[in-house]
């Protein structure tokens, strides 16, 4: 594959599980500073796609280039270190650590065993933690253990943990699932704020939420690309209406 100007270039990506193609020769290009939303009915291959980008699942064929660097075949932690952050569907935070510690552990220093032993809580670290805590609205809860946060706060904390790494590409898997309408509002505002300096890929089912945040929408169906474009174009696409929005 040639050099591209895209931040993320996925070409001919295929993964098959015992013959079942969860993602089937998919091409997807995402630009710098873009907020892309991926939608599609259950089993469309959305989460599998994110799994392959972050190295959790190895594709059967195809290539994933991030900043013109091949990600396929690299280990998960190596992919993270190139600047890819991934938020899981269910909030994964460290329940027995405080909000501060959750963010501190995610700070991208001291990632090797001996680096970790030598790690010190420098003013730089504290500063970053405070900045991110302000961003995700958890400044008041810095010393609360993760287990005592509300569901919405846990989701924000996980986004904050990713922001600590300053990723170029941030992938969010259903970030507003289980949130109250007020929390959805705040999450949409948060995503729009953090999108300025980086590229974000969001998987979401909530159409109202999608239309609020998306620059461009990609619709997947049975592992294949069904449609791509603005929310308006996608909403009026007859194929999309048939498989997904019409239900």
């Amino acid at each position, binding site marked *: 594959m040639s050099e591209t100007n895209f931040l993320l270039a996925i070409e001919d990506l295929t993964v098959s599980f015992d013959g079942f193609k969860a993602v089937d020769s998919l091409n997807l290009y995402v630009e710098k500073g873009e907020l892309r939303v991926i939608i599609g009915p259950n089993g469309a291959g959305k989460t599998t796609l994110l799994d392959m980008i*972050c190295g959790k699942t190895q594709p059967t064929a195809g290539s994933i280039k991030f900043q013109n660097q091949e990600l396929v075949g690299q*280990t*998960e932690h190596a992919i993270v270190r190139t600047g890819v952050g991934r938020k899981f569907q269910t909030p994964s935070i*460290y*329940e027995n*650590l405080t909000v501060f510690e959750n963010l*501190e552990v995610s700070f991208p220093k*001291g990632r090797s*065993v001996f680096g970790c032993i030598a*790690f010190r809580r420098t003013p730089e670290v504290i500063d970053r933690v405070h900045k991110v805590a302000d961003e995700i609205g958890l400044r008041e809860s810095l010393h609360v253990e993760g287990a005592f946060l509300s569901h919405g706060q846990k989701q924000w904390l996980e986004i904050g943990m990713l922001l600590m790494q300053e990723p170029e590409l941030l992938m969010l898997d259903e970030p507003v699932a289980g949130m109250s309408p007020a929390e959805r509002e705040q999450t949409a505002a948060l995503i729009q704020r953090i999108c300025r300096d980086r590229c974000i890929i969001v998987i979401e089912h909530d159409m109202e939420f999608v239309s609020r945040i998306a620059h461009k929408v990609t619709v997947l169906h049975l592992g294949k690309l069904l449609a791509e474009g603005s929310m308006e174009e996608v909403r009026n696409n007859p194929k999309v209406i048939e498989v997904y929005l019409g239900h």
Partner: protein
Amino acid sequence: MNTLYHRVLAGKSGTSGLIAMAALLLVVLPCTLNIFWINVVGKYLCFAFAALGLVVLWGKTGVLSLGQGLFFGLGGYCMAMFLKLEASDPISTKIQSTPGIPDFMDWNQLKHLPALWVPFKSLPFSLFAVVALPALVAFIIGLAMFKRRVGGVYFAVITQALALIFSLAIDGNQGYTGGRNGITDLKTMGGWDIRTHHAQYILYFATALLLLIAVVLLQWLLSGKMGKMLVALREREDRVRFSGYDVSMFKVFVFCLAAGLSGVGGALFVLQVGFIAPSLVGIVPSIEMVIFAAVGGRASLYGAIYGALLVNAGKSLFSESFPQAWLFCMGGLFIGVVVLFPNGVAGGWDWWCKQAWPVILTRLKDGPPPPATLPPITAKGEAP
């Protein structure tokens, strides 16, 4: 100074725990027990090293190894090989057909000291090997398993199998290892007779001091980022991995740490007891080490030491009267503790200090509170 207090001594509770432990091991027990029992307690403390390693490995990181006897044994055999070579000088072995080699080699018609044994003529090398060899073996096993994401019950079973293989390998190579009888008849270390009462006192204090130093070092390690990383690893391995950490290397590190600690315990055991045998390094001792940590409280460093003392004391007293029933008792104790009191003695103590005692104290001060505002003492009390 402040960092030292918080990191090395783990603040107020850590300091009081350390003082209590030091007072018990260095003052109370030596003043109240005779030399026979001091030696016995010294032996228990050797197992506490292995239990400390398990606290970090199992309690903090969530990786259960049922094969710590392997590392305890490696440390012990390293020490015993040196002591045996020193005890087998040509003069005291002159009646053998090949003088100057350990007696069991002579019985097995070996004519030369095996190459494996030669480095153990050196005391510095042997002391180095006591820590380094278990750590190296753990590094190789750990790398092979954790890089392939072997964990949980599979890891536990494989480590247990390795401990069994190790004890069988020793058992089956009598000429090289002393076989089932082990390595016995150890006398001096660098010319210093380790069998006298005087030496046994010194070895006891050395063991207790090394144990306290190990606790302080582990406290320092766990109070930093490493402590948080290990908790994070135990709770959300995937999240740690996708935060850019090579999870397997952290597990390898902790496994090596636990192995090195076990090795030190094994070497001190040999010095105090005067022999080592495959029966001390196989499956049963490995599981006993896990029981010490579980009873003491698998996430508490001090708990591990108290657990090793309590369970071993129980074993010594109880197995004298009911030798047949002891293993069942031990199994029952393990299941009971894990199911009913997952935080062991340390958890119970914590509950008493943080929840029960303050409630009793306020009641004593203010008299019984009116029933409507009764604090939920029973509800909390049931959860250990």
